[in-house]
């Protein structure tokens, strides 16, 4: 199939960027979206033009490294699918495709389609862990975890940290990411001792970098792992509870 691409090119963080048009010809419908870009790059290299820089790695939809806006949608038209798992059979011969980096002031462009998502790491460093040192763990079966709780925690934990939620949000909020990371731990018995301190620290760090949630729900529909905005509600509940000394003291 043949496609017309409009791709955001930007030489560096401080350079002025802009769209450039490219033709992608003879693309196999079996190719993935990133393999299509590989092919374009191969031709650019031959023609003496710098290849398009884009982040990618596992190409199995799990590492969270890839992600671009495809015709205005984070990760493109197929729901629950990361860019690397999107295949060209979802497009038609002759389509025009606009490809942009994630847009958010807290995630500046590094080059072309690559952005700096390190603010996510700052949120995790603020409290996205259970404080246990290596070697101090009790037997794994000493704490029974209700199957439902383990499943819900796993639903949250399947977040790949790609930042499509931020890119999709009109406010560039990172609530879905932060909520998923908080609730993964808050839903498990192991996460209870630090539940409230974790929630406050992570939410407040999030707010240093990102916009506020106004319940648009765009994040949920953009999420390649279909993470539910219910987690945001749970995060908000924990955040409110954390403001009360009684809850802090009883730890629940």
């Amino acid at each position, binding site marked *: 199939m043949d496609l017309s691409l409009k791709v955001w090119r930007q030489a*560096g963080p401080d350079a002025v960027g802009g769209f450039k048009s490219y033709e992608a010809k003879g693309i196999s419908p079996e190719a993935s979206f990133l393999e299509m870009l590989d092919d374009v790059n191969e031709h650019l290299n031959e023609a003496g033009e710098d290849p398009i820089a884009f982040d990618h790695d*596992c190409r199995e939809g799990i590492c969270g490294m890839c992600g671009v806006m495809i015709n205005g949608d984070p990760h493109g038209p197929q729901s629950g699918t990361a860019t690397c798992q999107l295949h060209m059979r979802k497009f038609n011969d002759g389509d025009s495709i606009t490809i942009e980096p994630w847009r958010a002031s807290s995630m500046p462009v590094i080059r072309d389609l690559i952005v700096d998502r390190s603010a996510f790491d700052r949120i995790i460093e603020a409290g996205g862990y259970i404080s246990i040192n290596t070697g101090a763990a009790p037997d*794994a079966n000493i704490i029974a975890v209700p199957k439902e709780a383990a*499943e819900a925690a796993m639903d949250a934990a399947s977040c790949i940290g790609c930042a499509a939620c931020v890119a999709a949000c009109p406010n560039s909020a990172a609530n879905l990411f932060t909520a998923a990371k908080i609730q993964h731990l808050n839903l498990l018995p192991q996460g209870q001792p630090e539940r409230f301190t974790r929630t406050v620290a992570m939410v407040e760090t999030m707010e240093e970098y990102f916009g506020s949630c106004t319940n648009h729900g765009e994040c949920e529909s953009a999420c390649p792992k279909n993470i539910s905005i219910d987690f945001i509600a749970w995060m908000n509940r924990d955040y409110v509870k954390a403001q009360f000394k009684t809850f802090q003291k009883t730890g629940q």
Partner: protein
Amino acid sequence: MGLIRKMNMDQEQTEPFLSSGEPSGPIETRWDNHRFATKLVNPANKRKYEIIVIGTGLAGASAAATFGELGYRVKAFTFHDSARRAHSIAAQGGINAAKNYPNDGDSIYRLFYDTVKGGDYRSRESNVYRLAQVSNEIVDQATAQGVPFAREYGGLLDNRSFGGAQVSRTFYARGQTGQQLLLGAYQSLSRQVSAGTVELHTRSEMLEIVVKDDRAVGVVMRDLTTGEVSSHSAHAVVLATGGYSNVFYLSTNAMASNTTAIWRAHRKGAYFANPCYTQIHPTCIPASDEHQSKLTLMSESLRNDGRIWVPLDPEDARPPNDIPQAERDYYLERQYPAFGNLVPRDVASRAAMRMIDENRGVGPLKNGVYLDFKSAIDRLGKNRIEERYGNLFEMYERITDENPYEVPMRIYPAPHYTMGGLWVDYNLMTSVPGLYSIGEANFSDHGANRLGASALMQGLADGYFVLPYTIGQYLSDYLNTDPVATDDDAFVEVETEVKERNARFLAIGGTRSVDHFHRELGKVMIEYCGLVRSREGLEKAISEIRTIKQEFWTDLRILGDSDSLNQSLERAGRVADFIELAELMCRDAIDREESCGGHFRVEHQTNDGEARRDDENFSFVSAWEWTGEDTPQVRRTEPLEFEYVALSQRSYK
């Protein structure tokens, strides 16, 4: 204590073998005794030491976090944008531990035994026993970190079976166990970053090791965003940079996985062990065309419930569901009745390849075999199957556009894991003092074939529970010494080398992209050094690899500069190193005149086509020593002794 310094030829004659430095005595007590005998660094002194960790996958992140907790000052580097991206994240199936929660007869000894046998008797008994011992602690640790392992209705942990074992000992988190374990390690690492014990550098790639007075004293890094080349020194350097399956170009590894860190270390004196031991995983999605950039693995756990078959008649072109039972060949169940679809990976892969060679492959390119869930769905219901493998089925459907609940999956073997890697002693130290290697980057525990669900186990064992103890032995000798200053000549020289090499890539000005050379290399390697190898083919491969190398250095075209983000330049360095490694892999494969595990030489097989080992002549680890740019590596050997597991021809029949 296993310190192997560079030896000249005279010494080599008096001391021909490498020593692992493993303890002796009853195997159950070796690790405990060794820990007691190992020198400790007292808690107040730990902060006087600096340790560099390269790579933040399971092994690197767990090691860096644990060092930080212990009080060491750590610098950790990853070439990803976050420590959470490492390819450990893609491991699907699970992690083994000898908990025996299912009460089906498992024990530390059995896990040890299975792993040595699964590795086709080419691993070090002491190491494997230690691995089995700490396996239980890993599951405890991960659970305490909040890894959401699958649970039974009563709230306790669930287990499943994996290839090469007759017990259920695999802990899992849906089909995303690697992701969850890595997030656990990443979160622990983040906690240490926040505590200030670990300084984490992202988008930083290691391009050289710095060795001074025969000790590793630091590294030279390139900031991938700005292109800046910088030196970092420490008392010890740990390489946790994963495996080299991407030497085959098409593999299940992430696109950026590479050999550069361990290859540069090899060139600086670290022995490279068993480079020809590579694992071709039986359950990957077959390639759809030649533009494909990577292969996708379907977890081996699928073989628990899926049945593998091909049509009896090679000409049978009917859709799979129209082929009656009597006209299907469930060839693994037929050939290996005891283990059936759960034979180890090497056996399953070769069996699939034989089917395809007999022209009985399925799919449009006739390059796959069926993995069929119909009988499991009939027996257990679709919901149960969805619960176990839902995300894998979805992934399969996204890639192939076929629904595996209704149509059998098509699978084919693909390069997946490399058992070979840097040679390390029992303390996980390479042949360069002060340089350690952990996880897939070393060669240590899997012998010639790795069993499923043991890569996660080994990476975390090394990082959480082995290296943090054993590193003290080396460090204690350097108390109150400062790391070598980074303006020392040793660093300045290496920094210059790195910059010159990058400039050289940019100056070639040829016509071909780096991916072109990578693809060409991959074709040669999979053809001649893949599932099946022969002396003739390997010799041919070496000559073709040399041609590729020559063309690479004259016809490569890398645009842009080295002072900013330049992905082609990054790849050029990695592919240049793969090309050198490829030749060593072929030489090692020629040198090992036997078949064992993932290394199958057509000259060495039984009458029914199974691998034939030669224990009399090849019961050793091959460790290759770099001798310079223009002279071939020299093979050194570490003899393997089996006191506990009786050597026998592996049989899964």
